[in-house]
C-alpha cells in the first residue's frame, strides 16, 4: 500500500472512527483502525464488535492495499503534525511508514485480513431522512434510555420505520419518551426471509450506537442520510460515512399501554420559565436525593414549585400557568423533568394530568406537521 492524503482529512477521519475503537478490549485488533486504499480514496474502518464505523477520505492511491494501525497512537501523531500532505506506506511485516514534511514515523500494524469485516446489511426496511430530524429524534428520546444492564431491553431505543414516519421510543420505567418524525418513502425489501420477520414493529438500537451517531450528524438542513434496519443490524449511511450497529435482541415492552389515553387537568406554561424555576429549585436538592419537586396550582393562576431537602433548606418558585380542570398537586423527579424541557424547542409546554398518583404527560405546544409528535410520560412521586 502506498497512498497520499491531506493530514487534516486523515486526522479527522481517524478521530471520528476512533470514537468507536474500544479502549478496554483485550483484543489488540479492536484498538486498531483498518486502512484500505483503493480507487482514489482511503477507507478507515473501526469497530468494537458492537458498533462499526466506516469513513472514506480523498486520497491519491499509488499502490492499493490494506493494513491496520493503532488508532490512539496514529491519532496522536496526526494531531500534532503540521497541515500538509501525508504519505503512508506498508511493508510486508505490516509496519506502516507515515511521512509528513520532515517527520517520519514507523508504526507496527496488524494484518488487514485479521480485521473483522463489518456486517453487510441487506433486505429489511429503509428510509431516507434529513440528518437534522434524526438528530432531534435521538435527542428527544435517548436521555430516557435505561442504564441498568440487567434489563438489557431497555438499554436501547425502540426504532420503528413506518409508512410515512420514523418513531423512537425510550424508557427506564420511570419515564417514557416517544418521538415521531415524518419520513416519506419507506422501502421494504419484502424478503420471504424469516430473518426479517418482526422488523415492521421496530428494532431496539443500543444507546451507544445512537450516541456515536448523534455526534456525527449535522444540524444543518438539507443533509440527508439513509436508515436501514434488518432483524440483526441497523445501518446509517451518509455521504462518505456509514455506521452499523448490532441491535438489542428481544421484544420491547408494550409502551402504548403506559401512555394515558385521556386527562382531567391540563397545565400550559412557558418552557423556559418552567425550566429556569426547576433548575434553581433543584440546586438545593443533593445529587443522591430522590430529586422530588412538588407542583401546586394556586387560586391566582400561578404554579407553586417547591423542593425541600432537610439538611439544606427549601426552595419556593412561582410561575404563570394556564389551567384547565381542577386544582393540581403532584410531585415529579425534577431531573427527569429538566431532561425533557432542556431539549424542547417549543415556546410552551403542556402537562396533562389525572390524579396525583397517575402518570403525567408532557408535550411541546406547537403546530405539528403530519407524522410529527413528541410526548413524555412521567411517573409521579409520593408527595409526603
Amino acid at each position, binding site marked *: 500500500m502506498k497512498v497520499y492524503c491531506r493530514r487534516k482529512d486523515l486526522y479527522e477521519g481517524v478521530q471520528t472512527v476512533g470514537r468507536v475503537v474500544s479502549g*478496554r478490549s*483485550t*483484543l*489488540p*485488533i*479492536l*484498538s486498531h483502525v483498518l486502512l484500505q486504499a483503493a480507487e482514489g480514496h482511503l477507507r478507515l474502518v473501526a469497530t468494537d*464488535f*458492537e458498533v462499526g464505523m466506516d469513513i472514506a477520505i480523498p486520497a491519491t492511491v499509488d499502490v492499493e492495499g490494506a493494513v491496520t494501525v493503532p488508532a490512539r497512537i496514529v491519532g496522536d501523531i496526526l494531531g500534532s503534525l503540521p497541515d500538509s500532505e501525508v504519505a503512508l506506506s506498508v511493508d*510486508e*511485516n*505490516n509496519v506502516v511508514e507515515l511521512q509528513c514534511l520532515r517527520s517520519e514515523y514507523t508504526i*507496527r*500494524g*496488524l*494484518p488487514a*485480513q*485479521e*480485521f*473483522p*469485516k463489518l*456486517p*453487510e446489511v441487506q433486505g429489511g426496511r429503509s428510509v431516507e431522512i434529513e440528518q437534522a430530524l434524526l438528530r432531534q429524534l435521538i435527542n428527544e428520546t435517548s436521555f430516557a434510555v435505561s442504564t441498568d*444492564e440487567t434489563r*438489557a*431491553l431497555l*438499554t436501547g431505543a425502540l426504532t420503528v420505520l413506518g409508512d410515512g414516519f420514523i418513531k423512537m421510543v425510550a424508557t427506564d420505567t420511570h419515564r417514557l419518551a416517544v418521538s415521531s418524525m415524518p419520513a416519506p418513502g419507506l422501502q421494504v425489501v419484502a424478503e420471504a426471509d424469516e430473518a426479517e420477520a418482526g422488523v415492521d414493529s421496530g428494532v431496539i438500537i*443500543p444507546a451507544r450506537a445512537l450516541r456515536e451517531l448523534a455526534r456525527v450528524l449535522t444540524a444543518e438542513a438539507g443533509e440527508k442520510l439513509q436508515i436501514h434496519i434488518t*432483524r*440483526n*443490524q441497523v445501518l446509517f449511511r451518509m455521504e462518505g460515512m456509514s455506521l452499523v450497529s*448490532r*441491535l*438489542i*435482541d*428481544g421484544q420491547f415492552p408494550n409502551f402504548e399501554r403506559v401512555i394515558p389515553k385521556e386527562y382531567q387537568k391540563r397545565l400550559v406554561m412557558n418552557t423556559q420559565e418552567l425550566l429556569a424555576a426547576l433548575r434553581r429549585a433543584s440546586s438545593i436538592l443533593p445529587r443522591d436525593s430522590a430529586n422530588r419537586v412538588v407542583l401546586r396550582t394556586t387560586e391566582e393562576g400561578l404554579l407553586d414549585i417547591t423542593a425541600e431537602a432537610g439538611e439544606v433548606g427549601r426552595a419556593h418558585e412561582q410561575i404563570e400557568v394556564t389551567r384547565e380542570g381542577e386544582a393540581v398537586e403532584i410531585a415529579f423527579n425534577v431531573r427527569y423533568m429538566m431532561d425533557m424541557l432542556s431539549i424542547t424547542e417549543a415556546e410552551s409546554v403542556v402537562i396533562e394530568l389525572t390524579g396525583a398518583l397517575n402518570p403525567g404527560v408532557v408535550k411541546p405546544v406547537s403546530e405539528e406537521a403530519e407524522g410529527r409528535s413528541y410526548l413524555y410520560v412521567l411517573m409521579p412521586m409520593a408527595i409526603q
Partner: protein
Amino acid sequence: MRLRELVGHERPAALLQGSLLSGRIANAYLFVGEEGIGKAAAALAFGRALVCETPEVRPEAGVYEACGTCPTCVLTAAGNHPHLRTIAPDGERIKIDQMRELRHDVSLTAFGGTRRVYLVRNAEAMTEESANCILKTLEEPPPGVTLVLVTESPSQLLPTILSRCQLVRFRPASVAAVEAYLRERQVVPEPHAHFIASLSGGRTGWALRAARHPAILEVRERLLALLAHLPEADPVFAFRAAEELRALARDLTADAEAEAGAEEASAPAPEDRQIRAAAEALLDMARTWFRDLLVLKLAKEAPVVNGDHRAGLETAAARYPLARIHQALEALSQTRHYLARNANVALTLEVMMARLLISD
C-alpha cells in the same frame, strides 16, 4: 487443531462432533481436565466448528469440523471473530466487568451469521460476583449462543454454575498412548518418544510440541535453569536473562522453521511474529514453573507439572514469598498481553525479568 486431532480425547471429541452433527448444542458446556491437557484447544476447535461458514460435515464418519479456510475461520484462527469470543483472567481473576461485557454482548443480535460462542478460560478464576453475573445467561442464552467454560478445578466453581453446564471431561492420556501416538506420527526419533511421553504427564499437546521441536526440550532445560537462578540473582541479571530469553525464542523459531508446513497450510508468518509466538510459548512454560511454586507453597506433597525439577522447585519455593509468586504470575500475563500488541520484544522482556527477581 481440529477436534479429531485431540489425542487421548477421542471420547469427548466424538461427543462434541455428535452434538454438532445432530444440531443439539447445549446452552453451556464445562470442559474439565488437568492443566496443559488440551481442553482449551478442544474448546477452541469446538467453537471454530460451531461458527464456521462451510464446515466439513461427514455424518457417516461422525465428522464435523471447521473448514479452516473460510473468512470466518481466518478470523477465528487470529482470535478476532466477533462470534467466537474468549474471556480469560484479567490478571489473576476474571472480573465482574468482563462478565458484564459478556452479558451485554450476549444481549445484542448477531454481528452476522447465526451461532455465537463464548469461551471462558480458567473459569475457576471467576469471582463470586462474576459467576453470579452470568447465571441467567448460562441458563437461558438467546438462540444460537453457546458458552464453554474451561477449568482445571471444577470444585472451585459455584454449584449454581456447575448445575447449568453440560460436563465434558478430558483425562490425561496414558504415557503409552502418548508414546504410541508419537511413534505413529513418526515425528520423533525412536529413543526420544518414550522420554518425551513420560515427561508429558499424559499431556498430549505438550508432548507433540516437544516432539516436533526437539529443541523445545533443550530450551525448556535452559529456561528452567534460568528461572531456578532467579532467587539469588542480582538486578543486573535481568538484562542478561532477557537476552537469554530472546535467544531461546530465536532457537525455538529456527527449529520450527526447519520443519515448516507440517501443521497448517497457512503462509509462513513474518519473522517478527514468529519470535513473538515463541516468546509467548516461553512465557507459558515459565508460567508452569511459577504455578508449581505456588502449589508447593500451599501443599508440599502436591504433584507438580515440572516434576523432573522437583528439587529445584522446592529450593525456589522456599526462597520466594507468596506475594512475589503472585506478582510474577501477574508479570507473565501482562507481558503476554504486551507482546500480543506488537510491543518491542527486547524491552518488554527486560521489564518482565526485572519484575521476576526477588531483590528489587
